[in-house]
Each structure stands twice: as structure tokens, then as C-alpha cells.
């Protein structure tokens, strides 16, 4: 499989949100706005690429029976590193996502890709897989966040932490509050999965 194909595979054929249905907790929790979704996706992508790379390099050195705890230590260390780096150098994003960053550790996409891909493939392929899945996850979260933000508040890509006023698409007073709250996340996600399966995954 070529590198490009591996990346594309993560975005379309094995899209973590719409096809594999992995990592639903951050998907539903962080997508109350498009920017939050995007930032969460990129943070996950960072961890995913590095964890895939490191685990793939170490795959022959880690005995099978202790592989899960070893992977978890590696992933948790990467997430903690990310958290400290974000807090120090990107305080704006950290204020928005602070609460969700530690949860990347238990995001099953990361351990899932470590087991399903990185433990069997070469380091470079694993890096590409991490990138592909990461891009797929980011795109899915941004899309879901944008849909919820438009329906819920009438504005998209607004973020006060970055001083973005966003694009107003409909009067702010006509927003459907439910879409910003938890039930809206489930509804929007359900419809997006259905549409994705209908138009993108052709059987």
C-alpha cells in the first residue's frame, strides 16, 4: 500500500468517526463549536502520529503480554507532554480544551490504531496511518461542530479565545439551543453518519 493510500484510507474508508465509530466521547463532548472540534482533532492527531511512530519502532522490543500497559504508558506520556506544551505556548487553545486534553489518553482511536496498525506495520507507514486517521478525525469533528454551531447559534467558526467573530448565517435569536447541548450532538452525528454512508462509502 502506498503512503498516500494509507493516509486516504484513514480519511475516507476507515474514517474513525463515521465508519469505525471510535472515540465517541470526545466527538460528542467537544464539538459544541467548529473551532473546538478542529482543535480537539488536531491535538488527537499529534498524539496519534507520535504514538503510532513510537509503538511501531518498539513493536519487537515489547513482549506481547505487557504490550497494552506499555502502549498506555507511552500514550499517557505523550498526552501529558502535549498538555504541558499547550499550556505553555498555546494558552488560548488550552483554556478552551483544557478539560478534554487528558481524555485523549482514553480515546480508543489511539490504542485501537496502535493495536490494529502500528503493531504490525513499519514505522513510516504507521506515521502515515496516524496522520490519515488524525485528518479524518479532525475533519469529522470540525464538520460536526460546524453543523451544531450553525443550527444551535446561527454563527459558525466563532471563537472568543482567538478573537474570531465568525460567519453569521442566520439571526442569532433563531438558534436551536438543543443542537449545542448533548442531545443535538447525538442527532447531528446520527444524520452525518447516515449521509456519509450513503454518499461517500459506496458499497
Amino acid at each position, binding site marked *: 500500500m502506498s503512503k498516500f493510500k494509507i493516509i486516504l484510507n484513514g480519511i475516507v474508508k476507515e474514517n474513525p468517526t463515521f465508519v469505525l465509530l471510535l472515540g465517541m466521547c470526545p466527538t460528542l463532548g467537544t464539538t459544541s463549536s467548529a473551532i473546538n472540534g478542529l482543535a480537539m482533532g488536531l491535538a488527537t492527531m499529534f498524539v496519534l502520529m507520535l504514538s503510532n511512530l513510537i509503538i511501531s519502532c518498539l513493536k519487537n*522490543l515489547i513482549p506481547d503480554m*505487557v504490550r497494552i500497559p506499555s502502549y498506555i504508558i507511552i500514550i499517557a506520556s505523550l498526552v501529558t*507532554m502535549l498538555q504541558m506544551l499547550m499550556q*505553555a505556548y498555546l494558552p488560548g487553545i488550552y483554556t478552551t480544551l483544557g478539560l478534554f486534553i487528558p481524555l485523549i489518553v482514553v480515546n480508543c482511536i489511539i490504542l485501537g490504531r496502535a493495536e490494529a496498525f502500528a503493531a504490525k506495520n513499519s514505522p513510516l507507514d504507521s506515521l502515515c496511518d496516524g496522520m490519515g486517521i488524525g485528518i479524518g478525525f479532525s475533519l469529522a469533528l470540525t464538520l460536526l461542530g460546524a453543523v451544531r454551531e450553525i443550527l444551535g447559534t446561527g454563527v459558525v467558526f466563532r471563537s472568543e479565545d482567538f478573537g474570531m467573530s465568525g460567519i453569521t448565517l442566520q439571526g442569532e435569536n433563531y438558534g436551536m439551543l438543543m443542537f*449545542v447541548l448533548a442531545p443535538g450532538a447525538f442527532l447531528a452525528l446520527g444524520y452525518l453518519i447516515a449521509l456519509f454512508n450513503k454518499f461517500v462509502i459506496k458499497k
Partner: protein
Amino acid sequence: MKKLQSSFTNMVIVMTVVAVVAGGVLAWVNKVTAPQIEKINAENLSKGIFAVMGSDNVQVSEAKEVGDYVFYLVADKTGKPVGTAVTTQAQGFGGTLEILVGFDLEGTILGYTILSSAETPGLGAKANTWFQKGQKGDIVGKNPGTCNFTVSKDGGEIDAITASTITSRAFLGAIKKAYDELYGDKKPLSEP
């Protein structure tokens, strides 16, 4: 290279090495980032204090931690006390709402800023502008001790954020609590 067998010695060695290396890397990253994080936190705090006291010519003369609150006694450049900034918190709609609020010596609100919140974007998250001077729910210049410091739905004087009464109640409650702690029946902290 052949995969390492799952023998007891191998497992112990691998787990120990992985843990030690991970711990070492984390300690190093922490050492590199800690001063920067501290700097940002201190900057945010002083920026927040300037904002809530409505003046850049002030400095913190003393910080006191009492229970859930942190009181910053604020004085002007000559050392004359001008009031107190307090961090206070309450349970909002989406999580803990943490506010820094500035009082003058009589307990009149000089300004406030939201330190952290998990309120709904587009609704409760509006609290950072809604209660500012000149806005619909203006609380600046009000004294929680002398006016009815609750939302109008509860018979008070403050307009709640549209469709976010829970956030508004939590917000006002947190400020009222800080006021009571500071000026209630106890002796004001800012008096000598």
C-alpha cells in the same frame, strides 16, 4: 529482529525501562515548560486584576487564601488601598464557573472577568460580556450589599442572560458569596 518472548525477566525489564524513560521525558518537558506556564498564569492574573479594578495603576499588596476564595488586597502605586479583587466560584450550567471580581473599599463592584467556565457557547458563555458596564445586565457600580443582587426572575435588579438563567444565577451567586465573605458581618479584610 525477532519479537521478544513474554518471559518474566523480559516483561519486568521492558516495563521498567518504558516507565523510567517516560518519567524522565516528562520530567524534562515539565522543567522546560514550568517557568513559561507560571509566567502566563501570573500575567493573566495581573491583567485580570487591572481589568476588574478598572485601573492599570494598581498593584497587589497582599494575597490571602480563605476557603474557596483568594483575596487580593489591591493598592495604588503610593500604597493607598483601593479595594479587593476576589476569585470566587459557583456551579454553572456546564461546570464550575470561576470569576475574578473587583470591589472598592465600600463593596461596590468595579469590574469582573471570567477566569474559567464550561458554559454553553452562544448562551451561558455570554456571561463574560453580558454583565459588563453598559451591557444589558450591567453589574458594574452596583453594591451587592445595598441592592437586590439576584436576577429579575427571582425579584432582583439584574437582567439575566436570555435563555441562560442557570448561568446567571450561578454568576450572581458567586459574586454575592464573595461579597458576604469580604464585607458581610465579618470585619472587612481591607481595613488595617
